[in-house]
């Protein structure tokens, strides 16, 4: 029988708390910027000019068809040869934003394409500008339709941020790795890290499900 000694891991709690907070902070920033980027890209893919659509399509396909850790290594280890040196934390945020931006572009596009044509034509006949039509008529119900998928994607990106420890970002799994390399309590360290990720994921999921209708698309659309 394995003897578990959680005390040896828990006495390093400042590391774990710092790691969990950094994971949350990385997720918060990349959620806001990533979703904004995704909406912008979705707009371009639906309404943009030919070359811009091609550009966005290339970005989306490039990111969705390459591993996250490779994107991260490219930004952190590759870009310096072009003279761009980023701290591990900034590199992690950029990688997460780029990743979430591409996936959410496709999620939002699905919502936009499901908008009935009549709704758009009705808005135009009321002499709304194209920007107004997109922001007030097309986007809110689209986001409401795809919000559960979007929240899942955010959680996936947050859990994926575990690999950011590979470039020495001091997030949660970095903390767990560091602790177990010092006291060799691997089992306990990873059980605690797993539990913390689970809690973070549930909190983020609940929070976004609550925030979405209130901030982005209005509560009446949620009922649909």
């Amino acid at each position, binding site marked *: 029988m394995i003897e578990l000694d959680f005390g040896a891991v828990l006495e390093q709690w400042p590391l774990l708390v710092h790691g969990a907070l950094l994971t949350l902070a990385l997720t918060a920033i990349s959620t806001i910027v990533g979703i904004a980027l995704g909406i912008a890209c979705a707009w371009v893919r639906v309404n943009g000019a030919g070359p811009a659509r091609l550009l966005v399509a290339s970005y989306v396909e490039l990111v969705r068809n390459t591993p996250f850790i490779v994107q991260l*290594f490219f930004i*952190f*280890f*590759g870009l*310096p*040869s072009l003279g761009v*040196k980023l701290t*591990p934390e900034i590199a992690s945020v950029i990688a997460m934003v780029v990743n979430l931006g591409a996936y959410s572009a496709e999620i939002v596009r699905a919502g936009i394409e499901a908008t009935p044509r009549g709704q758009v034509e009705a808005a135009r006949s009321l002499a709304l500008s194209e920007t107004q039509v997109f922001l007030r008529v097309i986007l809110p119900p689209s986001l409401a339709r795809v919000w559960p998928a979007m929240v899942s994607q955010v959680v996936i990106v947050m859990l994926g941020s575990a690999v950011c*420890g*590979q*470039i*020495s970002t001091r997030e949660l799994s*970095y903390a767990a*790795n*560091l602790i177990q*390399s*010092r006291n060799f309590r691997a089992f306990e360290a990873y059980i605690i890290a797993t539990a913390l990720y689970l809690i973070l994921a549930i909190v983020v999921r609940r929070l976004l499900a609550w925030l979405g209708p209130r901030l982005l698309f209005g509560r009446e659309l949620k009922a649909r």
Partner: protein
Amino acid sequence: MLMRRCLAPIVAVLALSASGAASAQSALDGILAKKQISIAIPTDFPPYGFVGTDLEPQGLDIDMANYIGAKLGAKVTLVPVTSGNRIAYLQTHKVDLVISTLGKTPEREKVIDFTSAYSPFFQAVFAAKSVSIKAPADLAGKTVSVTRGAIEDIELSKIAPASAEIRRFEDNNTTVAAFVSGQVEAIATGASVAGNMMQKNPQLNSELKFVIKESPNFIGVAKGDDKLRTRIDEIIAAAKAAGDLNKLSQKWLGRPAGDLPN
């Protein structure tokens, strides 16, 4: 590295029962008579021993083996060994000498004898020549990459000032990549990894800044073979006096041999 140094004693103790009594006859007589010497060398441990693009073993240990062979006037047969079996090879007389980044430990001294040290092994901090670092205190405000959990991580964490930013990476490859790509100003790593890195990246113009921990390499001879050990010690002492050990160390490790213990 830790494995390399810990495994061998276990194997050594196991092999002890097989080796039996120390040979009364010295291996040196056979070497001089046949003009032939077998030497165990590493092939998985650059720059001490590795296989080059021509598939021939090369490195500091191989150079040292050939050097000793030349001094004895014997043809050298290189025998590639692993960390785990190198001491057993010596005990079963499959080789006459082990020149394979062998560190001296009390456990090993029970089963084989050691000559004087011939080359340094160490963990150290490396950085570009333009960066001024002479002691741990100079790391203040600088970024250093290190492999998490390695000896150098644990030692550096003790001696580095609080304002030094120690960036810990998953393995030697990412630690080196962080330094080579310029993400950190300095790197703390073992001589083997650093030697390989500097060899492949001359454009970095990096050099050794200070040593974190020393653990020099010795040549292993069979237990009780004082005649061979004495002769090898003479060769090492002469090589040291002539500056040949320094040259060897400079060539492969980028630093002088330093103060090697006898």
